[in-house]
């Protein structure tokens, strides 16, 4: 009998344990739902460990989330920087387009006011070799441009066409020492000739010493050279000096900013003094 019990010990133990569990279940099913002593004991014993572990796990999770959040912020920051760069470039382009639109609108207004048909052209090159102040335009004889046609902007006179090719033309500016523009002082109607002085601007020659001239007087084209139409602004008197003989030395500051000149209008005047044409 004892041998049988020993041999069947695991099975008996199983029965005992299963019965114990069944009894526990039965008591719980019959009870009003309150926890048993064993449950309360397990919970009481485990509570501190559970709280500590939960706190540790919660802290780890929060730290991890914060770390991931920081990584996200860093990534977001990089993205924002790229966007700012893109937007800056776009803003720059927009600003450029806006300025161009303003200039073109001014040119358009000018063309509407002009007495001659005209062609708008872009400045595609500058030459200053040997003191000459030359501009290259992207329009040529194919667009109706001929030598000795005047070139203007809304601010004032630029110069005259001296050479043309089918797709390009060369303009001698009023800054060129070889240029000469018949001019007059708008206030006193005193006449003279404006010649270029390169970087220094222009000079108005042949003005009598007896003429009344003041700094700030506006110098305009007189039209006597048969190239430039009368009344186009050349510049403003910036200094007056005593010349040799019977004339004054009048320094003229051109109204046009030649360094920033981008678009001009060529007046398609039908006639003008003969000049060289190249092919």
């Amino acid at each position: 009998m004892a041998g049988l019990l020993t041999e069947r010990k695991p099975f008996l133990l199983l029965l005992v344990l299963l019965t114990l569990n069944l009894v526990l279940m039965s008591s719980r099913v019959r009870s009003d739902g309150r926890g048993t002593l064993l449950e309360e004991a397990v919970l009481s014993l485990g509570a501190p460990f559970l709280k500590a572990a939960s706190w540790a796990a919660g802290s780890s999770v929060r730290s991890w989330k914060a770390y991931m959040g920081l990584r996200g912020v860093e990534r977001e920051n990089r993205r924002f920087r790229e966007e700012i760069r893109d937007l800056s470039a776009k803003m720059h382009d927009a600003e450029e387009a806006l300025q161009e639109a303003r200039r073109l609108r001014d040119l358009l207004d000018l063309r509407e006011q002009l007495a001659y048909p005209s062609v708008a052209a872009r400045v595609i090159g500058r030459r200053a070799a040997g003191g000459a102040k030359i501009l290259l335009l992207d329009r040529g004889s194919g667009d109706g441009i001929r030598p000795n046609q005047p070139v203007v902007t809304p601010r004032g006179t630029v110069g005259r066409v001296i050479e043309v090719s089918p797709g390009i033309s060369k303009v001698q500016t009023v800054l060129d020492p070889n240029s000469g523009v018949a001019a007059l002082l708008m206030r006193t109607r005193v006449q003279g000739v404006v010649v270029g002085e390169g970087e220094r601007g222009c000079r108005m020659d042949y003005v009598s010493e007896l003429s009344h001239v003041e700094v700030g007087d506006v110098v305009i084209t007189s039209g006597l050279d048969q190239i430039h139409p009368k009344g186009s602004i050349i510049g403003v008197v910036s200094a007056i000096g005593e010349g040799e003989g019977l004339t004054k030395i009048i320094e003229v500051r051109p109204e046009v900013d030649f360094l920033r000149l981008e678009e001009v209008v060529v007046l398609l005047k039908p006639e003008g003094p003969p000049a060289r044409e190249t092919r």
Partner: protein
Amino acid sequence: MRIARGALALGAAALAQVLLSSYLPALARFCDLFTIVVVYYGLTSRPPAAMVMGTSAGLVEDSLLGAILGLNGFKKTLIAYLVGSAGSLFMLNQAIPRFGILFVASLLDPLAELALSVAMGQGFNFPGAWDLLRRGLGNGVFGLLFFWVAARLP
């Protein structure tokens, strides 16, 4: 010493299960650490010790989960006995057989609960086949990991 280790393993399993349920509930559905501990003891201990561990693990699980006290105790005791019996009949010290026994133990758990519920006249929603499969696979994978770690403990 063995009792202390058993208690420690049980405590660690309880703690890990609670944390898993709190922070990774999706994973906790497919990983029953109590079953894994019971299977481990069923394979590595004598049947009486395994059954005691099964009952203890089940009761602790019941207490923590707020289930009917004795329900998991009953199931885990049964699992420990069957696993212990299987361990004495077959060589279950390789990874694949152990995975298999963990998988079967995972299936036994809901089956035993179904049987108990029927016996007690209570309703029980038996999990679907896909759910059972995932539970078995999850316990198998985590169980093998547990065996691997336990084998390296002093």
